């Protein structure tokens, strides 16, 4: 085997140096940042969500009825799963639905909520919670303050940035009266809206007097 000359050794050293610098200064290979991935392929909205999960915040005035209220909500969800034609295609049938106490980063609503465009929850985030729906159940006194005469209000709980200057809701907050649980209106209108499904029936929409 021929021995390398000093000149050749210098070239080899330079090549190695070039390789090290060239590779290290190149763009980073994209690593998994831990950020979640937005998806429209199912109604869970976040690729990392494997099941429909709802978290529940209770008005402190209702604390004594928490088990009963959670059970009632679970029955409503089960009824919707049974009745809604899109339940399976939306991806909700993949795993059992989970309902649990405590929503991340959320205080109970206070003051009158807007019925459109309101936010109740963490807002813009790159790592949304596993919960597709945040349910806030209010006693009558609190409901009067927050909802007024509205039966319920929906708001966005979490948004993900999907473009530089565009974001989309990935979790919904549903603010309801405790007395609404178990009602047809809740099962057919508000609960489907809260999980991103079409409503089942309900009153015809009122249309404003629009013009061209």
């Amino acid at each position, binding site marked *: 085997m021929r021995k390398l000359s000093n*000149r*050749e050794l210098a*070239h*080899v050293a330079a*090549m190695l140096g*070039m*390789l090290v610098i*060239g*590779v290290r*200064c*190149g*763009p980073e290979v994209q690593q998994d940042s831990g950020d979640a991935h*937005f*998806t*429209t*392929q*199912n*109604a869970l*909205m976040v690729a990392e969500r494997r099941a429909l999960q709802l978290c529940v915040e209770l008005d402190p005035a209702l604390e004594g009825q928490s088990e009963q209220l959670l059970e009632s909500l679970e029955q409503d969800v089960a009824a919707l799963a049974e009745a809604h*034609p*899109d339940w399976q*295609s*939306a991806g909700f049938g993949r795993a059992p639905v989970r309902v649990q106490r405590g929503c991340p980063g959320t205080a109970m609503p206070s003051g009158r909520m*807007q*019925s*459109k*465009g309101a936010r109740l929850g963490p*807002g*813009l985030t790159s790592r949304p919670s596993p919960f597709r729906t945040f349910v806030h159940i209010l006693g009558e006194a609190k409901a009067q303050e927050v909802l007024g005469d*509205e039966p319920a209000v*929906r708001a*966005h709980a979490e*948004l993900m*940035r*999907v*473009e*530089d*200057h*565009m*974001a*989309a*809701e*990935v979790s*919904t907050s549903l603010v309801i009266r405790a007395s609404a649980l178990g009602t047809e209106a809740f099962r057919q209108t508000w609960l489907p*809206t809260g999980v*991103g*499904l*079409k409503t089942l029936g309900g009153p015809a*929409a*009122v*249309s*404003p*007097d*629009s*013009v*061209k």
Partner: protein
Amino acid sequence: MSLKEAAASPRGTSPWIFVAWAAVLAVVAARNMPVAHASHSHTGSNQLHISTIHGNDGTSTSPGGQDEQYCAMSHTSAVSSTWLGDNVQDTLINYPGNMWDGAANWRVDLWRTQKACNEYDSATRGTIEIEYYVKEDWWDVELCQGYYSCVVADNGVWDSVGGHTHYKWMYVRYQLEHIYNTTAERKRKFINHETGHVLGLRDPAGQGTDCAVTSVMHNDLYGCGYSVWYPTSSDLAAVTRVADRTNTY
């Protein structure tokens, strides 16, 4: 070095050195080559859009449930809600061939409400698909901050026909300086660009990228070499594919 070797490599360098250098340079070049991005607005997935885009059930004199109603609301004393509504309306419906209204064989059918967004009761406002806002800045909206006009998609609903979630409500927020005290063309660029988002089109991957296809989504405001202010034939075709459910998951 022999005379023969010197003749083969006049400067006294072995041929394998050139080959090795070429290989090293190829590796470094490949490592540093800019990443190519797919054309943003005419391919791909996750093209968020307003839920009414797939149908058209209105008449020539009144909107149907599958048409797109929009209202305007100013958050600044510099311009009124009526001024904003007038300008959005002008851009959206007064330039046949160069406007969004009528796109996708009238599945994009835009109707302006007669009052400002906040003048409707909640039930009625809930039926308005698009809300346009304007303000000096949007520092209270992290997505927009002080520089960008932006769009938020709200009230997602599953479309079992297309197998995707689309959105019932879209909120378009304009920075005042993007549409006021500026040229008519620049104003229309912003109005059409943000409305393009509502209809499913995306931003380019970066400044000066995705310029090959002329689009209001990546004109000179995004570093491309053309100044188009209206939806181009490519944009209209892309929106048609969204409406057809052939360009989304």
